[in-house]
């Protein structure tokens, strides 16, 4: 069996698993069921298969597969699924939140399936350890913000009186707000580390730590949005629904930075593209 065979089989098996997990998580939320063990297996097993697919691709193309659009989406789906699984383990009372997060992962997966999956070529300046450091921190940041937005969505839906009954098994808005704040604090730390690692890489590779290219600019805007969200919560102590709104808005900016900018800009720094 070749590396390509392993990659394709693992990849498609992972996608089927993710789809099943999404359906079961949403079913459990709507009909107030608790298939926690089944769902955990359906999250973990496909994620492990996805890990195998990425590793096989790495072996096949001989570099870290984060360069073209397909690879960027694939590794981001992998990172977001890792965040869902981690939150599933670490926050057992919030397992239902997975039902709100997985549809977004499925949207990214659908997008990934609509684009060519050709092997990428590694640009000259990407032969550096900073590629792993920068991307690693950014993936953790997006994962932490993703979990925060899932929790914020619960508060948001409750305040809009949508699915109140289904969401009633979850903790109070105030308790959810504290956990969302923690996730955003983690996001702030790792976004800062990611931006700084990127700046050090740029300084090393091009002699400039900042060039105001669109991706850098939007990563700064994302950082400022996280800072604003944390500052507002710490200083003005607003209601959980207001915090939730800020977290959702911040995540939307982060999504635009990660998935929007690389497609509208042809600047040198195009993230993973």
């Amino acid at each position, binding site marked *: 069996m070749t590396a390509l065979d392993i990659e394709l089989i693992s990849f498609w098996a992972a996608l089927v698993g993710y789809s099943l997990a999404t359906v079961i998580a949403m079913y459990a939320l709507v009909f107030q069921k608790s298939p926690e063990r089944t769902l955990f297996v359906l999250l973990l097993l496909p994620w492990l298969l996805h890990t195998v697919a990425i590793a096989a691709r790495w072996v096949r*193309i*001989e*570099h870290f597969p984060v360069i073209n659009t397909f690879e960027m989406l694939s590794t981001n789906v992998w990172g977001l699924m890792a965040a869902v699984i981690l939150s599933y383990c*670490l*926050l*057992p*009372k*919030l397992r239902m939140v997975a039902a709100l997060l997985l549809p977004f992962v499925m949207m990214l997966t659908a997008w990934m399936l609509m684009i060519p999956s050709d092997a990428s*070529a*590694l*640009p*000259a*300046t990407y032969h*550096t350890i900073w590629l792993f450091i920068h991307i690693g921190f950014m993936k953790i940041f997006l994962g932490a913000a993703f979990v925060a937005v899932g929790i914020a969505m619960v508060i948001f839906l409750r305040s809009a009186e949508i699915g109140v009954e289904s969401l009633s098994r979850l*903790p109070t808005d*105030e*308790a*959810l707000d*504290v*956990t969302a*704040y*923690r996730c955003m*604090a*983690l996001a*702030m*730390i790792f976004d*800062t*580390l990611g931006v*700084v690692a990127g700046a*050090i890489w740029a*300084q*090393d*590779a*091009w*002699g*400039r*730590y900042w060039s*105001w*290219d*669109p991706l*850098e*600019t*939007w990563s*700064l*805007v994302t950082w*400022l*949005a996280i*800072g*604003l969200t944390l*500052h*507002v919560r710490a*200083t*003005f102590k607003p209601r959980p629904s207001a915090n939730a709104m800020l977290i959702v808005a911040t995540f939307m900016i982060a999504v635009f930075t990660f998935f929007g900018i690389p497609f509208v800009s042809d600047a040198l720094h195009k993230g993973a593209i």
Partner: protein
Amino acid sequence: MTPDPAVSITSQLHGEKSGLGNRRSLVQVLRWLAAPQLTVLVFVLAAVSALWISEAGAPPTLVFTPPLLLLTVNLAAALLIHPRFRTDLPLLLFHIALIMLVILFFIARMTYLEGLATVTRGATFNGELLRVEKGPWHGEGYHNLRFVNEGFIDEYPANGNGYLTFNTVHWRDVAGNLHRRVIGDDVPLVLKGYRFYATRRGFTPRLFWQPQSGDMQYIDVKLPDIGPDGWHEGFVWTLPGGQQAQLMVEHKLIEPPPGSRRVDLGLSQIDAPLIVRTNEQRHVLRPGRSLELAGGTLSYVKLDVWLGYEVVYDPTTPWLIAVTVIGIVSLIVFYLKRVFIQSTQEQVG
């Protein structure tokens, strides 16, 4: 009753001679400057400024200065007015690091240099930059920098796009010791803090110009960059005598296959003549041949290559890294203490 810490601080600042009214008004001003609402404004203003710079091409220094200034004033006032900053060391350090970063950004813009140089193979960089942009505090010291470009190799990776440049350079240090190094697209030559990165490249016809009266001149004409189509752009050259001539090397540069290398743009395999157009006349020159023109004789010695260098200088970089590390460590410790340890009672899950 507990004394107002802000009043106590400002009275220390102004001394006991200051009147109570002055102190109160100063405290009011400090409170206004330290207002968290102003911090919100800084966040929004910084984001808008960043987008304006990136999307509309506004001048970065000019546009980003107001939010940075406002941030510095807001943070400095907050440090003075809010006792919390003095009781929480990580929080204090993080905010001081932010202020230090703003100061360092200011120093960086005052002292930076960005430029472009081109050096023919075998020639010495003479300290002249084709394009230079520098801060008002930057001196003219770069004119004294010297190094020799020994030629370059382009390596086309078997599994990759583009090419990697390996450019051998040598230079002498202050003590006269010779140093040799291979630099490239992302591996700079660093001379007295100036970083030289290999960038564009092109052909250099080496010529002699013998005027009808006077001494012979040796000239390197750097033709424009090689375009994506493999040809260099058209180039009009003004001869020492004032006459204009269009120069062209009639050679299409073909990209080598992946997994191969090309030395000095494949110069040893190029047999193309130099085309000189003057007054509607086309002349074909081979190495060693001459051409009689109005005012003198132009002799073509040989074809050579030049390599371009992006030159950057920023003395604040190590300080920026140090302050950033302090800021990040403070941020992590702050959140570890405040969010992940102290609020465990509120933990969900």
